[in-house]
């Protein structure tokens, strides 16, 4: 186990091009030993490249990779002692489940009794104990993925387990159980887990720390709460949360006040120093409340739709030419045509050039 440090890492797949496109733009990042991380971002944002750089499958065009103090940049995958699970199950089809699970230990010449004990322990965690003597080829897709996962878990001394959307092929119930299992494993063995996903719910429920990436850059790293409450960019606000953050172009009317069309709102951000024309207000639909009367920071909106999701209602309404979404308690009575919505100042985020101020 080790602390993983990426120092000024950047990568392009076309190093000889005159104007190469960088899959990963220059960045520095560190992953604490024993941490539980989620790497979140849309497809093609550089998540897999980053994982492959850590595992040594890809040599970065720039920068260095450290495991603790050790520079591993030019070290081959085999020497890095990393486990990686891919999106689709990779099994050794000619081997049995036992042989598959014991393969990483055999490659590293662990003693037989230790291999046997560890494989059985991991098989039990993954509910594979009844299949140990079966050919891996004949199992179902999710069982195969469990084997892939198991090969990562049998080694207690791995620097980290990197998972590249590993639960895509697994059914929702098992997915939930496995995520919990992974958390337990992380608690028990203190193995660093890095989990790549484009599903924010998966990221939020799994990780202590989430790193959000977009277009080859890390746009925000923080706890699920930070990401939800104080998205550092409009992209994070839009990408994290369901529904996405409400975002409106606005203008500064005084030090702590902005206006959207004819409506003015107080905010807690000092916007006096902002020189940019490009100001936006962002607010989570969870923080918008339905009021009976007008007060500070309220607006009147025409209801377009009210959707009942069982545990909450989602109001979609419009004011001026803008749309607004509010998530409210299910029991709340909602008027049929017009509704007064309040945007609490403490939850209003102001973005200048799409960055939080």
């Amino acid at each position, binding site marked *: 186990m080790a602390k993983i440090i990426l120092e000024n890492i950047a990568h392009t797949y076309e190093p000889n091009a005159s104007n190469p496109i960088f899959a990963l733009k220059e960045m520095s990042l560190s992953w604490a030993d024993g941490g539980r991380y989620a790497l979140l971002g849309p497809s093609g944002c550089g998540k897999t490249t980053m994982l492959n750089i850590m*595992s*040594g*499958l890809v040599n970065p065009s720039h920068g260095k990779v450290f495991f603790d103090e050790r520079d591993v940049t030019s070290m*081959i*995958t*085999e020497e890095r*002692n*990393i*486990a*990686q699970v*891919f999106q*689709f*199950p*990779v*099994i*050794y*089809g*000619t081997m049995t489940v036992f042989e598959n699970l014991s*393969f*990483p230990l055999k*490659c*590293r010449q662990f003693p037989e009794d230790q291999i046997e004990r560890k494989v059985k322990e991991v098989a039990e965690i993954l509910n594979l104990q009844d299949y140990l003597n079966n050919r891996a*080829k004949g199992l179902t897709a999710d069982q*195969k993925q469990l084997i*892939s996962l198991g*090969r990562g878990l049998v080694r207690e001394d791995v620097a980290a387990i990197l998972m590249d959307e590993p639960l895509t092929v697994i059914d929702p119930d098992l997915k939930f159980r496995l995520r919990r299992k992974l958390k337990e494993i992380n608690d028990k063995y203190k193995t660093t887990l890095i989990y790549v996903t484009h599903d924010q719910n998966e990221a939020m429920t799994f990780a202590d720390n989430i790193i959000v990436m977009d277009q080859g850059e890390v746009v925000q790293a923080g706890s699920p709460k930070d990401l939800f409450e104080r998205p550092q960019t409009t992209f994070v606000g839009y990408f994290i949360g369901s529904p996405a953050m409400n975002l409106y172009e606005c203008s500064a009317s005084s030090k702590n006040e902005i206006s959207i069309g004819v409506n003015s709102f107080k905010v807690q951000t000092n916007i006096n120093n902002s020189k940019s024309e490009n100001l936006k207000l962002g607010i989570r639909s969870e923080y918008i409340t339905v009021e009976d009367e007008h007060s500070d920071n309220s607006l009147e909106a025409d209801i377009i739709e009210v959707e009942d999701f069982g545990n909450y209602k989602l109001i979609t309404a419009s004011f001026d030419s803008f749309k607004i979404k509010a998530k409210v308690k299910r029991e709340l009575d909602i008027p049929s045509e017009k509704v007064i919505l309040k945007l609490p100042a403490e939850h209003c985020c102001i973005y200048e050039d799409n960055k939080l101020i």
Partner: protein
Amino acid sequence: MPKLYTFLKYFFVVLWACFVIAPFLWAISTSFKDFNSVTGGATYIPWLQFEPTLDGWSVLFKPGSQGGINIIGPYFNSIFVTLTASLISIVLGTLAAYALSRYTFKAGIVKNNDITFFFISQRIMPPVVLSIPFFIFLSSLGLLDSLAGLILVYIVLLMPIAVWIMVDFFNRVPREIDETALIDGCNPFQAFFKVVLPNSVPGMLVAGLFCIIFGWIDFFFAFILTFTKVQLLPVKIVALNSSITPWWSLSAAALVSVAPLIIVAFIVERYLSKGNLSGALK
């Protein structure tokens, strides 16, 4: 409707089977006939329509001094040359194909696909183009009229087939399997030998089948590059021909020479379906 479909399916399968098996039946019956039975009009049923005889077969095994051609020596020569050349072609071809599938080669404008095409182009050329270069090549090495010389030439002829089939096979094997093996602690060679290779057996068997077929049936180079010391089966069988075509012994020789291919095909047959090839890994 499903019944009609089943009927038609079986009808065409049976029709096709008859079409395939007819020449064999014909050859079998002819091999047990003598001159009069062959030339005296079509007959099919032994003992009833013609008197079976082993003359056609005995010629194949009698020494030259007794009017036979004794194919046993050439038969084993053919087996030895074909199997050795096929085996070497498969081993070298598999290694080359893996490299072509997994690593990027570039020399000027020549890239991986061009190298693969270069291999295949050896088979596109008419064999006659290669006959003089091969003759001079073997002659300079002192390998004319020798088993080693033939094996060398057959490797050149068979390896393109092996490379071609195996490149396609490896291209369909997900790279993640190699990467997983590296992550699990193998070096690139161990990843190939411990993980990729055991999963590639179906592809190698298919490539092997094609190599054996093409090696076994070659007459042209066996004829040009050998004289008296070494003879292969196809050359020996052609030597049977004379002013009166001995259909009975030619039929017997055809059956004897096709037998090994049928045995090999039966063994490899279950790996021939595409599903088996692509399903080898995932």
